[in-house]
């Protein structure tokens, strides 16, 4: 039993040791952490719902390498973002920039929310007013009177 467990452990760690991605981490952990933090804000263009940090696509690996190198060259995060949007467009940013073409994106949901809330308030007010203000028709008045009379008769 012990031997089997040992075997399993051995192969688990052997596989971890063989993983290529782990290699650069050891060289400069601070830079790697900064690269990963920035990569979490960037979109992988191949598998579009993954971040650059998570993706195993070839291009993602190349772009991480590129980000790493730009950082080593002393570029700021903003400059690296600009470098990437210059080539791939705003699509690489998970947080789209605020500009006239993205106003609908940023403010649209709030507009819809306030529009819906306003509509609801308007609708309720109108309904209440309609209920308050509708006078009784003569028919209804006589019917109510007769029902009330019946009640008082019974009493």
């Amino acid at each position, binding site marked *: 039993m012990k031997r089997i467990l040992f075997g399993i452990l051995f192969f688990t760690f052997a596989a971890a040791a063989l993983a290529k991605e782990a290699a650069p981490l050891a060289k400069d952990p601070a830079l790697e952490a900064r690269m990963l933090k920035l990569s979490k804000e960037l979109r992988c*263009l*191949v598998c*579009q719902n993954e971040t650059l940090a998570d993706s195993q696509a*070839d*291009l993602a690996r*190349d*772009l991480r390498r*590129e980000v790493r190198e730009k950082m080593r060259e002393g570029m700021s995060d903003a400059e690296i973002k600009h470098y990437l*949007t*210059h*080539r*791939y*467009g*705003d*699509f690489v940013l998970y947080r789209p920039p605020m500009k006239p073409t993205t106003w609908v994106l940023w403010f649209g949901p709030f507009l819809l929310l306030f529009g819906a809330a306003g509509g609801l308030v308007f609708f309720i007010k109108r309904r209440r007013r309609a209920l308050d203000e509708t006078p009784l028709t003569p028919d209804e008045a006589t019917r109510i009177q007769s029902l009330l009379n019946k009640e008082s008769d019974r009493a």
Partner: protein
Amino acid sequence: MARFLIPFGIFIALVVFFAIGLEHDPREIPSPLINKPAPAFKLPQLHDATQSFAPGKMLGQVWLLNVWASWCVSCREEQPVLVAFAQSHSVPIIGLDYKDRRQDALDWLRQLGDPYVLSVSDADGRVGIDYGVYGVPETYVIDKQGVIRMKHIGPVTMQVLQEKIMPLVLALSK
């Protein structure tokens, strides 16, 4: 009447939005490089690594830059179209062999035909990144001034050539 028309109107608007959304291919990301100068590079030629090529050499003519690779499955589909198109000699096509092994690329061209005036090797994919390449094959139309005028993502088909690329090339060649 309005109480039925309003929800119906909202429903129709939603259907229209969804229909437009379905028509869009999410893989096609508009390139910010359209109408910008084609990024400069200097890369070794595939057939003769001692020779280099830079896009500046193509100034004064309209040309196509086709990004391809021997490992790329859709390129296989595209190649016969490009080979047939190259025989018309109307537009020079330069190949950018993206992240490929030289020998694999040469074998591939021998097997499927070589539509390129010449190909350059972008072994580490850096030039590809400068051009915003994210899915091979990609094709760029570059004008006489060296400005990118169109980018086609995915394999070039006969239809794309006839309806999109050729009309643009003819207009730019005037």
